[in-house]
């Protein structure tokens, strides 16, 4: 049995013109796997995950969850999955404990509210009203509401968006404990470092389609070379002789995004000195320069020619 299997999933919102949020998605998630859906806003991540959570009906295609279908086994699926939506504002005037009791009452089996609190380290806030919690604590509570039914499969839709680095790291640690308990996790995010760190496999979404899928390492390797040099000059970037630069040894690719240039290179120490001397020969001065390991972000840039975080949505995401 696969934890999730979806085939040719399509979601079109009626309208003039109709909005094709998801345009033929295929993927499978193994039991015990942490699967990441990575992509810019409007790529169809939330629409896809909400179809899999049984909150939206697909226009066509099939979605199987834990070997069952939403149309016939909706109730059994809901008993066995846990969900954290992108933006749920839980009732401010209920305490953490009361909120978890409420969610627990919906499930036939599950954890006690205290056990769920312990999993997200919120025991100290047991009797605190939700309005007094910080953003990170609220997000952890949202995850606890997903855990209280002791699910086999957990959906987390952008669990760390808008959180400060400390809270984000706390959530990462919580998600890592799910992995140790070999629960299946489907996570959407637009932070590449999150996907790189947590996910066994990643699907990169863009404009309603999967444009790449694999382990983070495989995807990064697909960029070609392992390092990225990023620079810009204090003149019109159009005057830079791109051909000249791409002739440098181990430079795999030169790309220009707005005012900045991205070089995918094998040996940064060789390329750097060459690059600087070539630019000075063109009498151009650097206004910025940085080097780093290639990341999933570069995979995205490589595939789409756009940045992940400021990519303009090509298709509206779930309204």
């Amino acid at each position, binding site marked *: 049995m696969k934890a999730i299997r979806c085939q040719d999933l399509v979601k079109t919102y009626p309208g003039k013109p109709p909005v094709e949020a998801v345009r033929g998605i295929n993927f499978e998630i193994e039991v015990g796997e942490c699967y990441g859906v990575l992509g810019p806003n409007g790529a169809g991540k939330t629409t896809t995950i909400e179809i899999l*959570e*049984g*909150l*939206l009906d697909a226009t066509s295609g099939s979605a199987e969850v834990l070997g069952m279908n939403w149309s016939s086994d909706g*109730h059994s699926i*809901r*008993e066995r*999955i846990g*969900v954290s*939506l992108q*933006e*749920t*504002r*839980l*009732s401010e*005037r*209920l305490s953490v404990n*009361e*909120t978890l*009791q*409420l*969610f*627990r*009452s*919906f*499930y*036939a089996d*599950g954890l*006690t*509210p205290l056990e769920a609190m312990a999993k997200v380290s919120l025991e100290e806030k047991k009797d605190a*009203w939700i309005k007094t919690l910080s953003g990170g604590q609220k997000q952890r509570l949202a995850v606890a*509401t997903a855990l209280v*039914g002791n699910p086999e499969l957990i959906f987390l839709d952008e669990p760390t968006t808008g959180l400060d680095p400390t809270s984000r790291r706390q959530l990462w640690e919580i998600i890592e404990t799910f992995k140790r308990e070999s629960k299946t996790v489907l996570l959407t995010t637009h932070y590449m470092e999150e996907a790189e760190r947590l996910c066994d496999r990643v699907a990169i979404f863009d404009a309603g389609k999967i444009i790449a899928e694999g382990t983070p390492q495989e995807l990064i390797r697909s960029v070609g070379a392992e390092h990225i040099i990023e620079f810009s000059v204090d003149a019109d970037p159009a005057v830079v002789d791109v051909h000249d630069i791409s002739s440098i040894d181990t430079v795999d690719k030169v790309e220009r995004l707005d005012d900045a240039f991205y070089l995918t290179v094998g040996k940064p120490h060789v390329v750097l000195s060459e690059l600087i001397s070539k630019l000075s020969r063109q009498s151009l001065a650097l206004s910025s320069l940085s080097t780093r390991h290639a990341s999933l972000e570069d995979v995205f840039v490589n595939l789409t020619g756009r940045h992940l975080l400021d990519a303009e949505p090509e298709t509206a995401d779930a*309204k």
Partner: protein
Amino acid sequence: MQTQNPIWALTLARLREFTRQPEALFWVYFFPVLMVLVLGVAFRNKPQETIAIDVLQNDFSESVTSHLEESKTFKITVVDEQESKQRLRTGKTLLLITANDASLQSIDYQFDPARPGSTMARNDVDQTLQRAAGREDVIATTNVEFQEPGGRYVDFLVPGLLAMGLMGGGLWGVGFAIVDMRIRKVLKRFMATPMKRTHFLIAMMCSRLVFMWPQIIILLVFSYFVFGVQIYGNWLSIALIILLGAIQFAGIGLLVASRAKTLETVSGLMNLVMLPMWTLCGIFFSYENFPEIFHPFIRWLPLTPIIDALRALMNEGRSITTLWFELGVMAVWAVVPFFVALLIFRWND
């Protein structure tokens, strides 16, 4: 307490949220009391109403005022000519009296017959002056003051306000809360759990039925102690009508909130539902004042049977068995909106 019944858990959560919101408590519990207080005082039965009349300032005005002052019915103001016109026009006085001589031989009355009470004022003044001038009554008359229990305005008002409270509380308490939950995506979040939809709707109605009772009791106790409003009918019947009324409006609240996605929409819809009933159903004055052809329509509105039944039970002490029509209309409104809401409810977005 580890695992609760979902209906109970949802009801409890709703009750907790409500009681932790002081502003909601104010509007639901104390606003109706404030209404009774203000209206009860404004329309209290005065021992005897005084009639405002003016006497034109001239050499003979004293001859008129001396007689009129003996009767405590009149509130007399002596005015000059210019002022008198102004006061008549603006309704500060009902009648202007001009004495043309010192011995009550000739008097002029000036008034606007279209203004309510002015003719009565003229006749009262005239009778007092005619008697003072020596006219004898030829018929021996006796006045018997009629005062039936439960017949004062405040007695009439309290059942109306009770019903109005049921309507407002049901629509706001259920409708607003649901749309708020929809906006906060809590409804959608619940849909991703095995929670049953009927459980949720039943819990919303149950919680309303629970926090309605303090609202009713506060209003009744207040009216009893402040205005002496008594209940002449059977308590159990009254409780039954109130319960049925609350179910009715909780159901209508569900219906109003079933599709709305913003608080503006649901507020608009609620006002659309409530405004006609505020004016038509006889909260503040009897709907008998409307032309007769509207009465059947008015009696089928959800608020009317509650008010009519409560007045019949509380003020007239009638038996609930005389109220089949009202009970029937209420039963329809208690059942139909709930099921329509269940059919068209927007759960997932």
